């Protein structure tokens, strides 16, 4: 057999929650490639493996689908690829239809739908370990005879758990069912017939699921538990990540110094030292936070908790024009809106998804924290309130709440504007509880890290270099006084846009700092440091010095106005780029930018005017 013919393409299809991705991970290990299908933002996961018999396979992990009567872009892709009708994707040689052994009533129907295609297929009955624990007995040979295709058992989370599937592929391959078999058959009736023939099931649900759900979905206990889980996630993201973040920034800083020390004095050295390493360092610092957040999200998702959180919050979020499914993306957006917006892919309703994408930037991402810390330190007195609260902490909390409240308000207004545009379905499956497997968590985390790093090394790097150029050139003329940045293009732009921001109380220094903040919001702090020509050993020391200067140079009204501006802060180019990518066009990226800018301007304007009047 020659090499080209030897590599067969197989596709894993199945209902959501059938353990398909775990089986994919078991087959291919870390030899995976994650990309998008051409023209749509549905994730395309492909991997390779070689059987002991020496045959090599390319495996496609198709999005989960309940039916070929597609209700989401994901399901449409699965349908089109299985039929060989997706442009640019060859039809798979073998369809491996994965079913959950404990949920055959639902999953066998889809198997029958796949069988109607008449393509070579194998049925993999997955989660056989869980089925045995529940006393479920499945007569696989009988099922295979009735279906007319090979049926094998798999336990994706166990070493060697895919052996039967691999052997089957190795030995005789897949068998195409008799074509056009019973096209008019009632699939549900056929499923019932198969179940009564080949499956013995003592109970309909697992006792453990019922017991856990009684607590987790309890109207009061469930909400308390959800609050506790969210608190724990936040605590971990902000407390555990801090030492790792220091490590990353110190590492990148040291590497930058090492590299620039080799280079001759000049603009190139400044580009590498300040532009590339300085700029990337500030963004890479968020990698630990993003990874810890995603570890929690993946674990909660694999265990089956997230759909339950969506169940608890759906009524609340539906009232605000979102959906229970919006909860996960919005939670991610507290670390960074970019992974949050990417996570909206799990929302099937396109309008709910769009609403979630548009309000995700209002969640207070961690890049705003350095700005908040600086301004609160400078303008809010450290005072006890009501015994044990600290006024500064309360202001920070209020800023977070203001972001959430604005998001709910904006989505509510969008819901009103759309009027009655048909129903928004929930139809959310609450799968059985499962213990997440470390291997699936690790692979998922590695994928997130890779996506983030790819973005950092492409778009964010390009923007950082551009902004470095704008703030470094032209160099100040000989004998010039003041900060060098004041004479640069960034300085010119800062002066030019200052009239627009004068009603908000922003001086030209702030306007200049807003520009580098376009690449990453927290860069605004170091830009202010540059504007005030400060030299400091570390960012913390810079922040402390800057706090004093800002407090003496700006009015309270200006400080508060800038704080409020950053609640909305439309100036994050990476977020806008991601919105453009995920919505396939500039329209919604433009809408998001425009409404965030308008809100930021109006809210800061109101704050400045009121504060000027109150504080004189």
């Amino acid at each position, binding site marked *: 057999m020659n090499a080209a013919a030897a590599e067969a393409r197989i596709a894993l299809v199945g209902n959501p929650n059938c353990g398909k991705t775990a089986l994919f991970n078991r087959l291919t290990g870390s030899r995976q490639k994650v990309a998008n299908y051409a023209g749509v933002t549905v994730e395309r996961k492909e991997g390779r493996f070689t059987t002991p018999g020496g045959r090599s396979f390319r495996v496609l992990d198709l999005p989960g689908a309940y039916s070929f009567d597609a209700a989401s872009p994901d399901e449409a892709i699965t349908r089109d690829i299985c039929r060989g009708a997706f442009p640019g994707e060859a039809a798979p040689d073998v369809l491996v239809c994965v079913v959950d052994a404990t949920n055959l009533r639902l999953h066998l129907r889809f198997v029958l739908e796949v069988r109607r295609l008449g393509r070579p297929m194998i049925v993999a009955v997955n989660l056989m370990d869980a089925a045995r624990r529940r006393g479920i007995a499945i007569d696989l040979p009988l099922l295979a005879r009735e279906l007319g295709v090979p049926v094998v058992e798999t336990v994706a989370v166990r070493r060697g758990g895919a052996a039967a599937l691999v052997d089957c592929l190795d030995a005789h391959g897949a068998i195409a069912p008799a074509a056009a078999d019973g096209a008019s058959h009632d699939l*549900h009736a056929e499923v019932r017939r198969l179940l009564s023939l080949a499956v013995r*099931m003592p109970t309909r649900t697992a006792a453990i699921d019922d017991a856990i759900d009684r607590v987790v979905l309890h109207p009061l206990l469930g909400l308390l538990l959800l609050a506790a889980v969210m608190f724990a996630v936040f605590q971990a993201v902000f407390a555990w990540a801090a030492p790792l973040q220091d490590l990353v920034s110190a590492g990148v800083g040291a590497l930058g110094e090492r590299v620039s020390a080799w280079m001759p004095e000049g603009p190139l050295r400044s580009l590498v030292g300040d532009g590339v390493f300085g700029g990337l360092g500030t963004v890479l610092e968020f990698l630990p936070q993003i990874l810890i957040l995603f570890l929690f999200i993946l674990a909660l998702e694999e265990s089956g908790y997230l759909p339950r959180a969506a169940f608890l919050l759906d*009524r609340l979020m539906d009232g605000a024009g979102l959906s*229970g499914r919006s909860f996960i993306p919005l939670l991610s957006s507290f670390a960074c809106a970019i992974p949050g917006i990417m996570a909206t892919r799990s929302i099937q309703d396109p309008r709910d998804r769009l609403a979630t994408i548009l309000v995700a930037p209002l969640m207070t991402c961690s890049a705003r924290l350095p700005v908040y810390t600086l301004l609160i330190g400078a303008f809010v007195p450290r005072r006890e309130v009501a015994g044990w609260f600290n006024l500064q902490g309360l202001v920070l909390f209020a800023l977070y709440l203001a972001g959430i409240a604005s998001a709910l308000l904006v989505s509510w207004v969008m819901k009103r504007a759309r009027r009655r545009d048909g129903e928004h379905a*929930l139809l959310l499956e609450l799968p059985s509880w499962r213990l997440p497997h470390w291997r699936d968590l690790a692979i998922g985390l590695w994928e997130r890290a890779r996506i983030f790093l790819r973005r950092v090394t492409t778009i964010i790097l390009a923007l950082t270099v551009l902004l470095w150029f704008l703030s470094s050139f032209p160099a100040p003329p000989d004998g010039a006084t003041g900060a060098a940045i004041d004479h640069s293009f960034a300085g010119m732009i800062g002066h030019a846009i200052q009239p627009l921001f004068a009603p908000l109380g922003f001086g030209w220094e702030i306007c200049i700092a807003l520009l580098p903040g376009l690449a990453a919001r927290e860069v605004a702090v170091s830009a202010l440091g540059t504007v005030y020509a400060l030299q400091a050993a570390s960012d913390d020391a810079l922040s402390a010095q800057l706090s004093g200067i800002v407090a003496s140079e700006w009015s309270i009204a200006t400080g508060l106005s800038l704080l409020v501006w950053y609640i909305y802060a439309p100036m994050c180019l990476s977020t806008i780029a991601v919105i453009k990518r995920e919505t396939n066009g500039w329209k919604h990226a433009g809408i998001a930018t425009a409404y965030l800018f308008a809100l930021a301007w109006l809210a800061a304007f109101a704050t400045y005017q009121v504060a000027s009047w109150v504080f004189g």
Partner: protein
Amino acid sequence: MKAILIWVPTLRLSDLQVGQGGTVRHVDDHSAADAIARRLRDLGFVAGETVRLVARGPFGREPLLVQVGFTRFALRAAEAARVRVSQDPA
């Protein structure tokens, strides 16, 4: 022989009490090509299938947690109202 028509009183799935079970009679289409009704049928809400209302969401009466077959789904009231069930004897 004359066909014997037995009238079975049906109610909407959304009207069941928590913990109550029933048997699906049919799923109403709310429009000509009701995608939600089609999806409900695909998920197993078909005549003869037993269902049970397991729980309701904490804010008001929505969403509903419904057991059908071996699977549990969260449905909004409007979705559950499409499913007509005959109540099981208590």
